[in-house]
């Protein structure tokens, strides 16, 4: 039995409504408990800010990030955030580290832990290539991991929707999650991936997908229905159509509206819209491009069925990687950048393109502002997950920097003062004076994630929860984040302590231990008879069209380290 007593912690735990109150936290055998014996090891928090371990609900950390590494060896040397990037030699405790936007697997684990993060969700697993994602997961130390499986341009999905076979569709989703050991349903540019199979795209919710006689709207609704039928822990996770295009805010709101009619089958939202920054653009071209954040936030403020994440932009180099194949091709042509593409048979597409966000570019400046506008204009932080869509908007190692933008109007002004008049005319950020406090920040980096992924043991410090805990060198009450933002940034950049399952993994910003995390995956129950008729269709697909056999398609148990199987009961 291992016991730890964290004394004098200034606890910020929104799940329990605790806002920086000084208290003790007790840990036994990796879980938070009400009390411990006198033999417990004592950590004196000395009044420092204490939160549950951070949970990044949308990040690209395994799978296609490897393409990013592959085509950008120069990233390995980039050291833009000292201590959290660049080349670091191996030590007795740690493997060698490289990289900034696309760090190697070990660096990903260590650096998230240094930020006080303990759980990540990889946002896109192609089913056929899922084994690869899990191979990388295995080599990411410390963190608990989960991944979202891609279904938005999948032939079997589109055919079942076209043929109006919702039960088989649900059975297929359940099977796909099992095959890929995924946690939830990811939809990227619904239908667009298939259109990209012919070098085309879809233009909006009602544009037919070539050869499949379905529309993005039907794909979204079909998958949402299947998601709810299976009672999956997370709602559908949607990357909207028209990402990255001026004027796309309208498609985004239209997509959000569609889900008003979807009734969640669990206590969570029915829709999560991801990296909305890239989908909240107004204007009709890059010439008259401007923020669409006020319209999108207006809608979100009046809606209760959805959550979203930011996709906040960080100035400097980034690497875009997305299952939105056509967008990446367009990016590469527009920016004259190298382009990688990987279409996956019967399923989806993806691409990787590096880029650079410059504060001198009015478009980039407005993009930067849109992320913050969304975070500040949407009133309820429980609807928001903080992300940079790492490394699309920028690397996760910049989270502490981004927190200062959220917490300090003064800091924002500093950045904004470098913008051109043209940029300022296209944004509303300068008129927003809201400053988030630690409580709201904890909601956006922990609380929302716990809730929307139905992981009650994560992202909070309740008795019974995982003892994933971050202590930051901040004395709440004695620091004003609005003015002392450099201190805030420093503290969040290297936790005083990070505990993972009750093990001290970071102390004074340095890695102390590197235990292996868990893999969460969902095994959804489907009635036998429905499953077996669905399997027949699938057998046909494998026989005729896939290039691997069905048995070799399934990710084998040996690829999962410390797996946690989440069962769900379907409603059929």
């Amino acid at each position, binding site marked *: 039995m291992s016991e730890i007593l964290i004394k004098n912690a200034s606890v910020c735990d929104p799940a329990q409504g605790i806002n920086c109150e000084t208290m003790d936290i007790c840990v036994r055998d990796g879980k938070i408990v009400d009390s411990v014996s006198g033999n417990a090891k004592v950590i004196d928090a000395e009044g420092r800010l204490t939160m549950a371990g951070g949970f990044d609900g949308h990040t690209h950390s*395994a799978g296609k*990030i*490897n*393409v990013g*590494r*592959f*085509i950008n*060896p120069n*990233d*390995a040397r980039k050291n833009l955030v000292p201590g959290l990037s660049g*080349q*670091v*030699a*191996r030590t007795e405790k740690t*493997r*060698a*580290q*490289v*990289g900034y936007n*696309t*760090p*190697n*697997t*070990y660096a990903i684990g260590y650096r998230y832990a240094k930020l006080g993060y303990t759980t990540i969700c990889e946002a896109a697993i192609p089913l*056929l*290539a899922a*084994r*690869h994602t899990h*191979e*990388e997961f295995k*080599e990411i130390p410390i963190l608990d991991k989960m991944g979202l499986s891609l279904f938005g341009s999948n*032939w079997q999905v589109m055919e079942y929707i076209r043929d109006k076979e919702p039960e088989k569709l649900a059975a297929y989703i359940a099977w796909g999650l099992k095959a890929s050991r995924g946690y939830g349903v990811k939809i990227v540019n619904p239908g667009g991936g298939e259109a*990209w*199979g*012919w*070098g085309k795209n879809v233009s909006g919710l009602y544009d037919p997908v070539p050869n499949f006689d379905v529309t993005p709207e039907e794909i979204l609704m079909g998958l949402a229905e299947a998601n709810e039928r299976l009672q999956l822990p997370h709602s559908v996770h949607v990357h909207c159509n028209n990402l990255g295009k001026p004027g796309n805010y309208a498609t985004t709101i239209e997509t959000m509206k569609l889900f008003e009619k979807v009734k969640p089958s669990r206590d969570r939202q029915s829709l999560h819209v991801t990296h909305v920054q890239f989908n909240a653009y107004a204007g009709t071209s890059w010439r008259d491009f401007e923020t669409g954040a006020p319209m999108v936030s207006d809608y979100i403020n009046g809606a209760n069925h959805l959550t979203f994440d930011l996709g906040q932009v960080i100035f400097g180099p980034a690497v875009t990687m997305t299952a939105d194949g056509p967008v990446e*091709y367009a990016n*590469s*042509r527009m920016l004259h*950048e*190298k*382009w*990688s*593409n*990987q*279409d*996956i*048979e*019967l399923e989806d597409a993806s691409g990787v*393109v590096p880029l650079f966000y410059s504060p001198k570019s009015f478009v980039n400046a407005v993009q930067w502002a849109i992320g913050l506008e969304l975070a500040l204009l949407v009133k309820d932080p429980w609807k928001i997950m903080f992300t940079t869509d790492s490394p699309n908007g920028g690397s996760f190692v910049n989270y502490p920097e981004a927190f200062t933008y959220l917490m300090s109007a003064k800091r924002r002004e500093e950045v904004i003062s470098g913008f051109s008049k043209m940029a300022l005319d296209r944004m509303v950020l300068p008129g927003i004076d809201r400053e988030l406090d630690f409580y709201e920040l904890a909601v956006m980096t922990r609380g929302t994630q716990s809730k929307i992924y139905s992981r009650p043991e994560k992202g909070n410090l309740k008795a019974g929860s995982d003892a994933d805990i971050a202590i930051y060198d901040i004395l709440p009450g004695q620091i004003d984040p609005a003015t002392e933002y450099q201190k805030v940034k420093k503290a969040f950049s290297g936790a005083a302590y990070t505990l993972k399952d009750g093990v001290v993994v970071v102390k004074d910003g340095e890695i102390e231990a590197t235990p292996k995390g868990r893999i969460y995956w969902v095994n959804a129950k489907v009635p036998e008879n429905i499953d077996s008729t669905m399997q027949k269709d699938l057998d046909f697909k494998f026989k*005729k*069209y*896939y*290039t*691997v*056999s069905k*048995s*070799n398609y399934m990710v084998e148990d*040996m*690829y999962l380290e410390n797996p946690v199987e989440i069962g769900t009961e379907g409603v059929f």
Partner: protein
Amino acid sequence: MPVIKDAVCSLCGSLCDDITVTVEDNKITKIENACILGHSKFVGMFEHDRIETPMIRKDGELVSVSYEEAIEAAAKILVSSRRTLSYGWCSTSCEAISGAIQLAEETGSIIDSTANVCHGPSALAAQEKGSPSASLGEIKNRADVIVFWGCNPVHAHPRHMSRYSSFSKGFFTEKGRKARTMAVIDVRKTDTAKLADKYVEIEQGSDLLLVTALRSIVNGHEDVIPETVAGVPKAEIIELAETLKNAKFACIFFGMGVTQSRSKYKNGDAMSSLISDLNQHTKAVMIGMRGHYNVTGFGQVATWETGFPMAIDFAKGYPYYNPGETGANDLLVREEPDAAIIAAADAGAHFPQKAVRHLARIPVIQIDPYANPTTELADVVIPSAIVGIEAEGTAYRMDAISLHMKKLIDSKFKTDEEIVKDLTEKVRELKRGA
């Protein structure tokens, strides 16, 4: 009589995963679906020159020893070396590769793969211009124009054309070969070329010229093309460019004829640009015809573990990468390594003379199932089980799709993965003692 279905063939980069294997008394007695190359690997395991036991060179002769002794001798070489080269690792599992990278990291070695002498330039091209690719099933289901450039699948990847490319039938390609245009670009009329609709005979080493000419035409600058380029008449180049442009879905498969000929990585760089240009008109992708069954896997594993796909130097404790400086042959030609591990590859047979001469001068540890010219240079020889037959593990197909290779029969040999693990343990032990 166990019949194992859907076994993965661990010979070429096609990684066919539909092999049916019958095993009787721990012997493979029947193989279905494999091509002649794959077949000979499955049945020929013991007919080839298998290394029977671990060996250490004593007084110039290799003498049999136990695994323990061989591992100890190898570990001693590693701890007393200041600049070890670890090379090969492409005909083994990703798990063994991962172990080899950790060993290289802990010993401050340089690790490089056989890409050094085959598709290494493709990686450099991708770093310059990216890699617009697709999984092989995309070609099977969609491609109506297929180009094989500087490769000869009939002999090197015998089932490629039937499973994935020219002859395969898919969703939008029901008619298979009949409704496809197949072109071959090569310096000689290969057996693959004989099956093509168009054979474009190109002058040796002039691939870059031809790619550039194609790009010019695709981008509407036909007028700048001279009457012949790369030995190919202008009219023929225009016809090829039109075929590509008018395709519904085109794929260029490129081989070592492109990556190892003159201009090397610039060929791949230009080809990637050509694919990008073609996508202004149609859909096009490119796929490297990788040779060894898991050479792609080395690149994948090395990239996620170290940030780089090959030629990784751990001398400073962190990965440093500069192909041309840190590649296996660069080092050997400079006579830099003072010890080498050659695993699952045959440097003795494939490296230039000067490199081999240096290998002969330094202690060499070989890890391999088979005796080959490298064995002649080796001071410690550690035999291993054959992955995909006697050992399980992961491999990556040429299109970066990973598959789990099954273990089909038992073997007295240790797996590469175990050997690397034991070796690492031993090195740690010796270092602790030191």
